[in-house]
């Protein structure tokens, strides 16, 4: 496996303009704000956050499915926004996405075997009987019986559909896959099957993953490095082992404390955040400050927005008081 950075996100922001309707004013939504990160070949970067944190938008930006409002995204050295359609299309073969809702991502009217075959035809990667062999191979690879090839999406279970989504993504032999909540819709027993499969595929094909999820346990399991998003920004970033054992940002700590573990003897959460009263306006101090439980919180937090900085070797946090955990 070659090392080095496969994806480089440099100071990327994305704003959406909402439409004025029902008498409401149009306003600008800062979905992603000034995010920089790198993803190394072969690693799995877990991107964690709650709804509205911007994690899904960031996933789309990384794939070039959305254009950043400012900043750049590079894939294997090539800046996505400078590429013409053909080059972008060629590059897209090397990056794929798997969605949470595979039922929504698959055409309900075409058999799943054809759905997997389609990208091979579109990109002319195989023809004739070679296609059949390849589709059968892909099905076997993701643990699906060949007899399911002729079934329609609704005839499959959620776990089977998610496997089809994976087979389809793998068809083009990508190097990089964005997994957007790939197991969130699945039951625990099936979720474990798919997580194991994702780990196997990563191993077998030297895949690099950007794993977008709200479930910390699932991220802990699969990710080598983790970035935590809040209000469009990355607030903490580190290796899975250090971040979970010793969160540096008070939001990460609250997030971890909030997860219920299957153990009735577990202590009740030390931190329960107050209900969110609305997002702080951009540029007015730390966006987390209104809910922040950190004992050192002071006037500075309401005034100056902290930047992401290295607070310990390979541990980054956007908190003025990250060292005083």
């Amino acid at each position: 496996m070659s090392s080095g950075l496969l994806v480089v996100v440099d100071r990327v922001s994305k704003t959406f303009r909402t439409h004025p309707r029902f008498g409401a004013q149009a306003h600008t939504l800062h979905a992603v704000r000034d995010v920089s990160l790198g993803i190394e070949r072969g690693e799995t970067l877990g991107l964690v956050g709650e709804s509205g944190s911007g994690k899904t938008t960031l996933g789309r930006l990384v794939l070039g499915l959305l254009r950043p409002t400012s900043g750049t995204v590079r894939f294997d050295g090539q800046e996505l926004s400078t590429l013409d359609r053909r080059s972008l299309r060629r590059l897209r073969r090397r990056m794929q996405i798997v969605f949470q809702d595979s039922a929504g991502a698959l055409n309900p009217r075409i058999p799943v075997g054809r759905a997997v075959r389609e990208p091979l035809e579109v990109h002319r990667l195989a023809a004739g009987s070679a296609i059949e062999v390849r589709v059968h191979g892909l099905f076997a690879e993701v643990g699906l019986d060949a007899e399911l090839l002729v079934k329609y999406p609704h005839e499959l279970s959620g776990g089977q559909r998610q496997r089809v989504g994976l087979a389809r993504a793998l068809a083009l032999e990508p190097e990089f896959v964005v997994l957007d909540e790939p197991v969130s819709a699945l039951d625990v027993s099936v979720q474990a099957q798919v997580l194991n499969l994702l780990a196997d595929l990563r191993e077998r094909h030297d895949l690099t993953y950007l794993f977008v999820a709200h479930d910390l346990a699932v991220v802990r399991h699969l990710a080598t490095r983790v970035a935590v998003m809040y209000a469009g920004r990355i607030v903490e970033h580190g290796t899975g082992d250090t971040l979970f054992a010793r969160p540096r940002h008070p939001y990460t700590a609250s997030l971890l404390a909030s997860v219920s573990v299957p153990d009735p003897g577990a202590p009740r959460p030390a931190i329960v955040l107050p209900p969110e009263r609305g997002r702080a306006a951009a540029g007015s101090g730390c966006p987390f400050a209104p809910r922040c439980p950190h004992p050192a919180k002071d006037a500075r937090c309401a005034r100056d927005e902290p930047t992401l900085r290295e607070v310990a070797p390979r541990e980054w946090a956007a908190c003025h008081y990250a060292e005083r955990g």
Partner: protein
Amino acid sequence: MIPLLRVRDLRATFVDDDGTTRAVDGVSFDLDEGEALGIVGESGAGKSVLALSLLRLIDPPGRIAPGSLVEYRGTDLLQLPEPALRRVRGAEIAMVFQHPGASLNPVLRIGDQIVETLRAHRAVTMPDARRQAVELLDLVGIPEPDRWVSAYPHELSGGLQQRAAIAMALSCEPKLLIADEPTTALDVTVQAQILELLLELRQRLGTALLLISHDLGVVARLAERVAVMYGGQIVEQATAAELFASPRHPYTAALLAAAPRWDRKSERLAAIPGAVAPATRWPAGCRFHPRCPHAWERCGDSPPLLEVGTGHAARCWLVAEPGSLTP
């Protein structure tokens, strides 16, 4: 002491072109006053149909089979005439759903909905009802309750909506709250808030809780006793402490092993092979046996719930075998 709720051999079936779905298939349990019972299971286990059946809320073609018993304080709710049952719903037994939208009317102000519930069940004056509505919103931790009382549901975040739904459910001080996946649709920090709220309210009001969830963590946090469902049946029940520490049914053990945890690193997850059979075609015998690592010839016969200790039972032949299975 008679239990608050006594359920015996409850069966709910749905008949359609694919055949008969036995969604709930012979469920029995007791729930004492003030107790918190968790019903845990994956999709298709029958736990939501169970919750709805208790209050006769399943719609045709769903029906509750004759011979089923749901006794609330000595009265069989399944035999109760509709007007009498309506007095029980909301006033004695209230429900909270996964999506607060299921309980809240989108075109009515939050306060008006609570007032409506109060006045449906209680002889209260309008000003008193309004005052109580504000108090209830305050009780469930909605900031500035006198402001939100005149808000419409869509103006509230998901977490605040669920708080409002809980306020409405608690408005008539029910003896039993049935909560069906009350935190599943919420973000994790909001989940923790709602769970804390439910814990606190139970301590303060002494309301019994029937908590339905797929989330083992949520059940561990709230429930004193747990029943695990699989294939429309209860396959194991025990105190929460015992169930999580020493599960005796292979399905319970497998479920606990399959869930990744953020607080420990696992190399490979112990997935359960296969998938739940469709409810129209449960396998003969033990319904889990096609996926069970311990299956043997006896599993072709349906096992009963076998006692394995005080208040602990498992629907598995192996628990009757001396020296067998400690999953």
